C-alpha cells in the first residue's frame, strides 16, 4: 500500500462525495413541495412564505445555491435546519454517532453468529446442518424488517420482559442502560444481515475447499483439521471484510424502519424525517455525511483486505 494509493483513495472519497452532493442536491431540488410551505404547514401566508424564502435564499438560481452550499459545507457549515432551527452539521454528526454505535454492535453480533454458521454449513455441505443453517438464515432475510422488529419486541420485551422495548440511551450517560436499550435493535439488524454473510461465508468456504491448493494440501497428506483451519478458514473469511463494509452502508441508511420503531434518532431516521419535512439542509448534510462515512468504510475494508491478503498490493 503506497502513499500514492492512499492519496488516490482519498481523492476518490472526495469524488464520491462530490457526486453524491450533486445527486442529492439535484434530487432535493426536484422534491415537490418546497421547504417553506412544509415548514409553515397549514399556517403559510404569502408574506410568511416570502420572508422564509428570502431568509433561506431559496429564490436564488439553483447553481448558485449549490455553490453556496458546497462552499459552506467545505468549511463544515451545513447551515441551519429548516425544521428545528438547529445547526445541521452537529445534529447529523450526533445522529451518525448513534447509527455507528448501532452498526458496529450489529456487525459484531452478526459476525459472531454468521461466520461459524457459514463454516458449519460449508463443511457439512448437503447434510442436515447445512439445511438447518440455510433455513435459519433464509428466515432472517425473508421478513420485512419492521415485522422482524415487531415480533422480536413482542417476544423479548412485551411477553418475556427481558429487554426494554425501545428508546435510545446514550452510552455516555448510562452505559448499562445503553447496552440494554441497544439489544433489540442490534438483534433485529444483525438477524437481517446474518443470512447474507452466512451465505457468503458458506459459498466462499466451499470455493476454497474446492480450490487446487486445498486439493494439493490434502494430497500432501495434511490432516483434515490442518487443512480446514490453516488453509481454508483464513482465505474464506477474506471476502467477508468487503461485505462487512457494504453492510455498514446498509446499517447507516437502510434501517430507517428499525431506527423508527426503536426510537433511535440515528442518521437514517433523521434523514427520513428531513425528507418528510423537506428540510433541505438536513437532507443534504445527512446524505453527504452518510456517504462519506460509507466511502471511508470501504477504503478501510480495502486496507484491511490488503493487510490480510498478501497477494493484494495497492499502488
Amino acid at each position, binding site marked *: 500500500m503506497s502513499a500514492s494509493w492512499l492519496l488516490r483513495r482519498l481523492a476518490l472519497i472526495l469524488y464520491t462525495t462530490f*457526486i453524491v452532493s450533486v445527486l442529492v442536491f439535484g434530487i432535493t431540488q426536484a422534491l415537490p413541495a418546497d421547504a417553506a410551505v412544509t415548514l409553515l404547514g397549514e399556517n403559510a401566508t404569502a408574506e410568511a412564505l416570502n420572508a422564509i424564502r428570502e431568509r433561506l435564499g431559496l429564490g436564488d438560481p439553483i447553481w448558485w445555491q449549490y455553490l453556496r452550499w458546497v462552499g459552506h459545507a467545505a468549511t463544515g457549515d451545513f447551515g441551519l435546519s429548516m425544521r428545528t432551527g438547529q445547526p445541521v452539521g452537529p445534529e447529523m454528526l450526533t445522529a451518525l454517532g448513534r447509527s455507528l454505535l448501532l452498526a458496529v454492535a450489529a456487525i459484531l453480533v452478526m459476525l459472531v453468529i454468521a461466520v461459524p454458521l457459514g463454516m458449519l454449513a460449508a463443511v457439512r455441505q448437503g447434510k442436515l446442518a447445512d439445511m438447518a443453517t440455510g433455513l435459519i438464515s433464509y428466515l432472517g*432475510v425473508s421478513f420485512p424488517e419492521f415485522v422482524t422488529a415487531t415480533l422480536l419486541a413482542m417476544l423479548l420485551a412485551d411477553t418475556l420482559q427481558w429487554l426494554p422495548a425501545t428508546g435510545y440511551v446514550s452510552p455516555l450517560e448510562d452505559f448499562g442502560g445503553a447496552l440494554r436499550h441497544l439489544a433489540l435493535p442490534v438483534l433485529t439488524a444483525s438477524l437481517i444481515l446474518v443470512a447474507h454473510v452466512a451465505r457468503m461465508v458458506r459459498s466462499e468456504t466451499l470455493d476454497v475447499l*474446492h480450490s487446487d491448493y486445498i486439493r494439493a494440501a490434502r494430497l500432501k497428506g495434511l490432516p483434515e483439521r490442518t487443512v480446514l483451519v490453516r488453509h481454508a478458514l483464513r482465505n474464506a473469511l477474506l471476502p467477508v471484510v468487503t461485505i462487512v463494509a457494504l453492510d455498514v452502508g446498509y446499517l447507516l441508511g437502510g434501517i430507517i424502519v428499525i431506527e423508527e420503531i426503536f426510537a433511535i434518532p440515528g442518521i437514517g431516521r433523521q434523514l427520513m424525517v428531513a425528507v418528510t419535512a423537506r428540510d433541505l439542509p438536513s437532507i443534504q448534510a445527512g446524505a453527504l455525511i452518510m456517504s462519506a462515512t*460509507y466511502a471511508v468504510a470501504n477504503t478501510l475494508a480495502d486496507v484491511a483486505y490488503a493487510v490480510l491478503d498478501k497477494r493484494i498490493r495497492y499502488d
Partner: protein
Amino acid sequence: MTDLLRRLMRTPQGAIGLILLAVLAAVCLFGPWLAPHDPEKMDFLGRFRPLGAQNWFGADQFGRDVLSRLLVGARSTLPMALAATLLGTVAGAVVGTASAYLGGRWDEAIMRTIDAVMAVPGLLLALLLVSTLGNGAGNAMIAIAVTFAPGMARVTRAVALTVRGQDYVKSATVRGESASWIIFREMLPNVMAPVVIEATIRVSFAVMLFATLSFLGLGAQPPASEWGLMVAEARQYVHQAPWILIAPSLAIAMTAIAFNLLGDGLRDAMNPRDER
C-alpha cells in the same frame, strides 16, 4: 435450457424454490378466482374476526377477508417486484457491460459514479425518488429499479471484465465491430448467467423494499392489497389481531425464500463444481 431445468430440479434448493414459485405464479394468475370473498368488501361485524371457517386467515380491521386479500394482492406484489428487479437488472447489466468494454478512464468514471450512487443507501435513494416522483406503485417500482441498477452494474462489470478478455471479444474488435455490437451481442449474452442468479436473489429484496416503502406510506395505494401495504397497515393491530400481520408476512417470506432458494439452486446448477 431443459438441461438446466433438470439440473436445477436435482438440487434441493432449486426444486423447492421452483415448486414455491409455481404456487406463487398460480396465485398471481388465478388469485381473483381463488379468492373466497371480495377483497375490498368491508364487514363491520367481522372486524378482527379470528381464523375460522368464515375467514380462513381471519379478517382485518375493516372486516375484509385476509385470505382473499392475499390471493388478489399477489398480483400487485409479485409482478411489481419482478418488474423492478428486471428493470434494474437490465439497466445495470448494460451499464456494467459497457463500462467493462469501454475500459480505461470511461470505466473508472462510470464505476466511481456508481460507487457514489451506491454510497447513498438504497432505501434512502428510493425514498428520495418516490418523494420526488410521487407516491404509487409505479413510481416505487422505478425507484427500486434505480436503486438496484448500480449494484447490478457492479456485479455485471466484474463478470464482463473476464468476458472482455475472451478472445471472441478481441476477434470482434479486430474485425472492426461497433461498440454496440460488441456490448450487446458478444458480451451481454455471456454475462447473463451470474447476473440472472444475482437478480433472482434481488427479487426478494425488491419485495422487501416495496413492503418498506409501503410501511413508510410511499408504496402502493390503499385499499390495494399489496402484501407490504397489508403488513404495514396491520402492524398497529398486532396486539389485537396478530394474524393480519402474520399472514401477509408469511406470504412475503415465502416469496423471498422461494427466490432465494431458486438463486442458490441456479448457482449450483449453473456452475457444477468438481466434487471430490
